[in-house]
């Protein structure tokens, strides 16, 4: 008798609970962001030049500017962003659980992340590759001489996988020292707990720039992988993916078309170039198609800047990070940065 009572209750409970299901998981992210009044953006907890809070606690950096650009496109206000610093180990969980709306956190676009992890990469904002940094006094000039070295590595990154592959294919041994964050990796490296620090070359340059004596450290010439870094959103909401994708494209197109934060207002009065007019919302309804105000791209460019401007302001050669454009120059200047047309 007892058992049947129990089973009966279970069945009843099941019916009631299924009936009570109201939560629908597939709702629109754009509407949710607008409702919330701010964009929830996942960023790196601290890579100088890419994402780091400045002395007064304001988030600054190349990746942060992407968050600000999306906020500017949606709200016409780049400050409407709530930043969530995420370590590499928790970033995807945070994204897929809805804790953040987008990730702008030097994340490498790979097949398995795109397909299996159910993330949607919405472009590449920095073409990077993995490199090695080592103290100069160890006298190593090539990554091939790293047999038996101790290597600091952030767990849960593509660099961890590349490292394993690189040493295996070259028949070398190494000892991994797994660390949880970029800052922790720097501390361990400076304390000498590892001989080598490996991560994306851009981050190596950024971290070397922040050292007390940058000239005591060298970045080895080998680049052992392709690391296309870009923003990503959850799989399954293409409208939201389009907003992030075309915000980045707008910044790139603006640079290509010579629209800058200074001359955008002037150009918004109307130009001879129809593509600039469409981009700035003078002609056509591109904004409305995205579910955004028509001057969305204008806001992005005036409030945040075009791709080249944010690059130079955060990580360009005049900054302490001092990265050359290299692969990240416009396609017209021999780089890989390219935007589909605004049409």
């Amino acid at each position, binding site marked *: 008798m007892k058992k049947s*009572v*129990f089973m009966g*209750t*279970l069945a*009843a*409970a*099941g019916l*009631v*609970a*299924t009936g*009570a*299901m109201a*939560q629908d*998981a*597939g709702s629109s992210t754009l509407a949710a962001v607008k409702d919330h009044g701010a964009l929830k953006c996942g960023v790196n907890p601290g890579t100088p030049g890419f994402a780091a809070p400045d002395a007064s606690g304001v988030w600054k950096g190349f990746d942060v500017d992407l968050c600000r650009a999306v906020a500017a496109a949606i709200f016409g206000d780049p400050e409407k962003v709530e930043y969530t610093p995420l370590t*590499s*180990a*928790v970033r*995807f*969980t945070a994204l*897929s659980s809805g804790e953040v709306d987008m990730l702008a956190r030097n994340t490498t676009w790979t097949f*398995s*992340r795109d397909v*299996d*992890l*159910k993330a949607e990469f919405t472009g590449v904002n920095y073409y990077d590759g993995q490199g090695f940094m080592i103290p100069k*006094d*160890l006298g190593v000039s090539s990554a091939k001489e*790293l*047999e*038996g*070295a*101790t290597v600091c590595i952030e*767990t*849960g990154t593509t660099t*961890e*996988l590349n*490292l*394993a*592959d690189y*040493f*295996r294919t070259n028949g070398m041994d*190494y*000892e*991994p*020292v*797994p*660390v*949880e964050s970029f800052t*922790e990796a720097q501390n*361990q490296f400076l*304390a*000498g*707990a*590892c*001989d080598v620090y490996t991560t994306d070359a851009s981050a190596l340059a950024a971290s070397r720039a922040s050292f007390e004596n940058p000239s005591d450290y060298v970045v080895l010439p080998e680049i052992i992988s392709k690391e296309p870094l870009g923003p990503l959103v*959850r*799989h*399954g909401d293409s409208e939201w993916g389009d907003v992030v994708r075309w915000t980045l494209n707008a910044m790139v197109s603006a640079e290509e078309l010579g629209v800058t934060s200074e001359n955008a207002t002037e150009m918004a009065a109307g130009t001879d170039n129809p593509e600039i007019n469409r981009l700035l919302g003078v002609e056509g309804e591109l904004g409305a198609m995205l579910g955004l105000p028509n001057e969305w791209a204008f806001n992005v460019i005036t409030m945040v800047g075009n791709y080249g401007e944010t690059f130079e302001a955060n990580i360009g050669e005049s900054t302490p990070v001092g990265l050359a454009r290299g692969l990240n120059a416009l396609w017209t200047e021999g780089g890989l940065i390219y935007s589909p047309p605004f049409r």
Partner: protein
Amino acid sequence: MTTMIDPPKADGFRISQLLYDTRYRAITIQVIAVIAFAMIAVFLLVNVNRNLASLGKEIDFGFLSNPSNYDIQQVLVDYSSQSSNLRAAYVGLLNTLFVAFLGCILATLIGVTAGVLRLSKNWLVAKIMTVYVETFRNIPVVIWIIATMAVLSEALPQPRAFRGENPDASMWLWDSVAVTGRGTYIPRPEWGAGSIFVVITFLLSLVAIWAFGRWSKRRFEATGQILPNVWIKLAIFAVPTLLVFFILGRPIALVSPALKGFNFQGGIQLSNSFLALWLALSVYTGSFIAEIVRSGILAISKGQSEAAFALGMRPSRTMNLVILPQALRVIIPPLISQFLNLTKNSSLALAVGYQDLRATLGGTTMNNTGRELECMLLMMMIYLVVSLLISSGMNVYNKSMKLKER
């Protein structure tokens, strides 16, 4: 004489009785509670399933057989980046058990010593132990772990300091142990021909120690005479093994670590992340065990020790023969939960980069495959099983120490 409660009438059941009749009320409440609980559970399950389906991520454990593609620092069994994720999880589990096992032993040693010393009549010793207990148990363990790691890696010399004509640092114990900011390197035994006999002798002498202990105890209970047990046991422990060792021409050699390339090679490496985790967990848990031991000893009435003194027993013998056997009955049950705590706290290993189960299965594997739910469920299950095994093992010991009522 009338009965206090009328017998229930067979035909008189009304719905309202479910609430107002004490005979049925308990059942009603239980049924409602079960319904509520089951509703929440079903709601959660359905919700999870629906959300996963809408993400296109149905529950699938296939990723466990795919190659892990990452390396692990401390490997107790064969493992490479080509091994499967399951193997990586197994390596992580072994690392968890390794640090938990050594942690429980060290924590017990520290805890028992500190607990007994805290009751010492020597004011300074007692106060020092009070300060130890209060400092360590009132600061979160993760802070101790990170602080220990920082001290180890910042304060100790790096391998390159051992290099050169006039090195800044030198090895300890006749150049056999290197204590560095990367870890401590100890000599590794090299097993030559005949070393198996040494090992067998050693194991046999362990059995002999156990047998001697039983015989000596029975003799003590029968005659009241006490042998110098410690010395005899030490002799059985060392003499036969050493004899065989030298007779066979020293088949087991010790290979000292030596600086080669970037690091020390040739010895056994105890990485700093392991040492930091092990020491911090042991010292932290030891402070709780100290309090448990102290309370256990204080629970034995003063009359017991007074009676022992009156019989002319020395303080150490009073402690060993009268107080501790009784105190253990009070100490063991809370001690079990401290062991469980230590095991579970070892999952903070990732803070210092020690790759335990949480860092492999619940860290890199989860992150690379994106199977959060599966990894979490597996991890919870494994921790649950490990904890239950520890507590059932300790319960067997507890039973053997319990007061036997005849």
